[in-house]
């Protein structure tokens, strides 16, 4: 069964997703790779900033805030904790 992929910023707060695809390019993609966002990485959506964007995620033990523009280029599938 193939899971449905959706962009990271649509991941509900408090739930986890697994990175399946990056569509970012150039410098932005390299930064994501530096953060350890590769195929199979588990990401938890932690909290929204007061205005709703950016959103803070836990990525490999670090808390990283991403804007919806960047997060929309990271596709995840939802996983049970």
């Amino acid at each position, binding site marked *: 069964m193939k899971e449905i992929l959706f962009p990271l910023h649509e991941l509900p707060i408090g739930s986890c997703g697994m990175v399946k695809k990056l569509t970012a390019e150039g410098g932005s993609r390299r930064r994501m790779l530096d953060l350890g966002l*590769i195929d199979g990485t588990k990401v938890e959506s*932690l909290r929204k900033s007061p205005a709703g964007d950016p959103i803070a995620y836990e990525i*490999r033990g*670090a808390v990283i805030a991403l804007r919806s523009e*960047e997060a929309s280029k990271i596709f995840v599938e939802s996983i049970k904790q």
Partner: protein
Amino acid sequence: MGLTNQSTGTGALKEMFQVDFESPDDIVVALAGNPNTGKSTVFNSLTGLNQHTGNWPGKTVTNAQGKYNHHNKRHILVDLPGTYSLLASSVEEQVARDFICFGNPHATVVVTDATCLERNLNLVLQIIEITDKVVVCVNLMDEAKRKSINIDLKKLSKLLGVPVVGTTARNGEGLELLKDTVSKVASGEIKTNPRKINYDEIIEESIKKVDSDINKLIDNKFNSKWVSLRLIDGDLPLLESMNEYLDSDLTKNELLNKKLKIARDKLKDDGLKIEDLRDRIVSNIIKTAEDIGKDVVRVENKSHNQLDRKIDSILTSRIFGIPIMIVLLGIVFWITIEGANVPSSMLANGLFWIEGQLTELFGWLGTPEWVHSILILGMYRTLAWVISVMLPPMAIFFPLFTLLEDLGYLPRVAFNLDYYFKKACAHGKQALTMCMGFGCNAAGIISCRIIDSPRERLIAIITNNFVPCNGRFPTLIALASIFIASAAGAFSSIVATLTILATIVLGVMITLFISRILSKTILKGLPSSFTLELPPYRKPQIGRVIVRSIFDRTLFVLGRAVAIAAPAGLVIWFMANITVGNASILTHCAQFLDPFANLLGLDGYIMMAFILGMPANEIVIPILIMSYMAKGSILELDNLAEMKQLFIDNGWTWLTAVCTMLFSLNHWPCGTTLWTIRKETQSWKWTWISLLVPTITGIVVCFIVAQGAHLLGLV
């Protein structure tokens, strides 16, 4: 690997990387690590105050070096910029990599964070791929313990093939062992056997195609497998660096290019597109790090981050996040302004007492009056003025601000405000550089280094001047109190405060507006990216905060200001004292500027005061008083009432005060700031733009306000 000292020699280190050698026996140790791992604490604990900071040659990346003695050997510690990776996607990464690769340090220490080791191993693996003289320092062991994270250091050392030392740098734990280990690795007493990254078979195959040829080309100086893979990946910065440091032009080497093409074709044949190679390499490194991490890290308490999460849920909450931030920053400003008054007047008294003594000395020596006048009333008095007004607020503001930084609060401010900055096409961290600008615009400009995206960084630099600095606050406060608030009677202090607040808000609005315009016009198309790390909250180290903020920020800014204020004092003295016809040069200039200044609601003298106040905004009002009173040196009046009367006698209305305040908020940056912009951008073009943008804004705003008020018959 032939990473010996002979390969490029200490001469190269000294020249290309400006390593401060005292003798050829000195041991050079590079300090690498991710940001927020306590790397600078390790650096400071090892070297104490025996350090100096500058820039990497030709780069606006801070280069800090320090010294320590161990077993009678002098060790020079070079603090590399904090990076997550060495694949050279930023200047910082390039600087760090070039130093490890071409600087030939005797040993490299990689500082890692015990509380998120796996992520840090990414950098460790990349470094042990380049050099085998590595010591891994697992720092923040106390934090890990508190969070019940257990790390098997022995096993980690076995898996990595290099020595591993656990430390808690903030209380010095483990640092002796670290020094011992570094010495032994540097001297070769400890032999290392670094773990190699397991690349996918197809990548290994393609490396084999070029490995031996590249090894010949680079004369066995570096790990040829690593160089091969970097070159197959099309790492141009590495090639450029090789050309620069090895003095051989490899870009035009036909054999190399041919071989690289073969290797890339091999990849393509095996089904890996060259664009996907970088992803594959990174994945392989991360997977290796993951495997090691699983073996050595044991998390006993899964909810170890709960406290941080709770604090975050208050400090970045929807309702309280922004109000808490405003209150905190308000407290910082209040302490700065209130706290600076006393030391400021003490300093002024002290310095003007010295002026008196110097005057007597000159009298005793019998020096001519004009010499005394130039040196004391011109240069010394301007200098004394700048120091006494500038030093106390900075010495209070910077430590407070550094304290918030050390706590880990500042990234949360950027997180809270990023949305609004995004609307202005700017970076959330610009909020922090603006806060710094309240202390001093020059310091604000330097702090723009924290913004890693080139476009947003330039925007932050160009617009920093719209935040009124410490030097402009006294002008704003004085004018607001005597012209705007005095009409409010009993509520005058409230009205004055509100006026100042309104000015700040206006400054912020102009900043956002101009940021947006800049990114849509001259900065269009420059690359931008946004990632913001929210590091764990940490207990601040008060002592370190005070020392670092005084040395790195306060004295640094003061030094630049003094260098500019002294000669400027001379110019001001000449302008005020040399008369042509029946008036001083200053008066002539003021009369010439008068018609233009009138259009902006100002007069020629005010305009001249702003121009002559270029060295430091603090002296604008003193120069103005000097000009109105037709005296030959800058001075201050004892009370605001006298000042108001003087200004009214010279034709001031409330509109003049408003326009002067607006012009103070929006005009050219001071000399120190411009100098700093030039240093930071390495470009005259951006320096000029940073001068013109606020100046034009100020002219436009003042013109609209002044002419609008006239048209409406308000004045």
